[in-house]
């Protein structure tokens, strides 16, 4: 394989990994704060692409207005799902919460089918992003460069927010101990809601770029990426944001390289994530950056 071709695959892998990372963070943050796998997260990601579709294709709003609007709407959707499907079950057994999450996921998928139809639609990617540039002998979409840049910016923003702001500190405190956080004067409902909003917003960033990279959207498009990003979060160590990013990149780059180097395994592309999950969990049961869980006595 020529070096040019390898670099092309690598850049592809990095941009796919970036998208996985953005979505995986949503899983890991919600898990951190509620110990819940938010199965609706993949569908919130899917809804973001529809919001963008309607903004640009139906209402003809310019992309630079549509995209921020999509972020806001998706964040609101995530907070809505939390308020309706999870908050009433805050004191219920964890299994009820999990079932509610699966229900929320089915609900969003079917709602989309009913409202928008099951027919795949073309994502109206602005030409600005899909232009092709010639690098050496290979042609690469500009998007391939934009995705990692946007991802890095989003991650820097997230790290700043979590480590340097009051809200971030409240999120960390709530994820450690709900009751104590409350007794310290933290409004945990608001903090949890904010966490869902933030995770959904990052999923929307991922969703918009996903739509441009794979420009066909349909109501079940969130299922497989959702599962893979969940796996990415587990591989990295669920509950750990850095871990979700690492897991996302390992999965994205690994998947592209599998197809590149072993073309006859292309059909197993989706199975790759699961095989990798099994292999990593066999040696590190709590994931790459996961902490050993100490039994509470």
């Amino acid at each position: 394989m020529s070096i040019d071709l390898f670099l092309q695959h690598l850049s592809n892998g990095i941009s796919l990994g970036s998208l996985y990372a953005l979505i995986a963070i949503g899983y890991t943050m919600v898990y951190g704060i509620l110990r819940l796998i938010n199965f609706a997260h993949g569908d919130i990601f899917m809804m973001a692409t529809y919001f963008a579709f309607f903004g640009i294709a139906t209402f003809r709003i310019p992309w630079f207005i549509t995209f921020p609007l999509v972020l806001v709407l998706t964040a609101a959707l995530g907070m809505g799902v939390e308020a309706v499907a999870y908050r009433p079950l805050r004191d219920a057994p964890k299994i009820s919460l999990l079932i509610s999450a699966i229900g929320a996921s089915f609900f969003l998928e079917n709602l989309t089918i009913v409202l928008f139809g099951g027919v795949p639609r073309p994502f109206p990617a602005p030409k600005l992003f899909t232009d092709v540039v010639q690098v050496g002998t290979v042609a690469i979409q500009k998007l391939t460069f934009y995705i990692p840049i946007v991802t890095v910016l989003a991650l820097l923003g997230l790290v700043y927010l979590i480590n340097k702001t009051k809200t971030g500190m409240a999120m960390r405190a709530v994820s450690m101990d709900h009751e104590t956080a409350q007794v310290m004067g933290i409004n945990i409902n608001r903090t949890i809601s904010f966490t869902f909003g933030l995770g959904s917003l990052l999923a929307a960033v991922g969703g918009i770029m996903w739509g441009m990279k794979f420009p066909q959207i349909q109501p079940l498009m969130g299922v497989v990426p959702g599962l893979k990003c969940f796996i990415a979060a587990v591989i990295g160590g669920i509950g750990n944001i850095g871990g979700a990013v690492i897991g996302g990149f390992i999965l994205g780059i690994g998947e592209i390289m599998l197809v590149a180097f072993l073309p006859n395994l292309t059909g197993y592309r989706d199975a790759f994530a699961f095989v990798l999950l099994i292999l990593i969990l066999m040696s590190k049961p709590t994931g790459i950056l996961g902490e050993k869980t100490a039994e509470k006595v």
Partner: protein
Amino acid sequence: MSLLKIEDVTMNFGGLTALKSFNLQLMPGEIVGLIGPNGAGKTTVFNIITGVYEPSQGRIFFMDQEITGMRPDLITKAGIARTFQNIRLFPGLSVMENVLIANHLHLKANYLEAVFKLPSYRREERQMREKSLALLERVGLIDLRDEQASALPYGLQRRLEIARALATDPKLLLLDEPAAGMNPKEAEDLTTFIKEIQTEFDLTIFLIEHHMDVVMNISERIYVLDYGMMIASGKPEAVQNNQRVIEAYLGVNENAED
């Protein structure tokens, strides 16, 4: 006027009555002890005051305002702070952050101001930071401010928990077994410390304690709980010699229980 008033509070957990028709009044500036054998319902009293549990029956007033069933964070804002029997610091946060977070409830800034750090927010935040540092200085943890809370030795964790509670600017401080696990010397230091902060921060203190030296030395009045019922209350000496209290601790016909 009483600072805290608990009126006929009962707390049931399913079929278990953890607290029955409990009455209590705390006057401003008092130090009052709550004692009783294990499982008597002492921590339940704290959990009811701080809103962690909503009582099955009865009412609670703080500074003449009813707080029964209020959200814990709002009760904290109203001026009640607590520590926990088994220390519950935020283990992954630094010493400074543990105090800061309790301080933050006084920030008026909303989410957007906080995230974007607008000037008004920055000013407020600077004040909070100074206040937290002063508090750490006071409790002698200033040099350890960047350590992870979980890395502190046990005695200092207890101190940090008290500092964190003080950071919420309480009028009433609830201490749940502050001297647990301390040797006599440490317990004595703690007693002095509690008395000091009581005057310095103008506090009313209500504490659960098993160390009889500490509780008898520090409390102006003592309430005694047994199986969820108040069996005695009054001055330390009177309580100490009360027959029912002695029975509750030592047992009547059976052998002593812990």
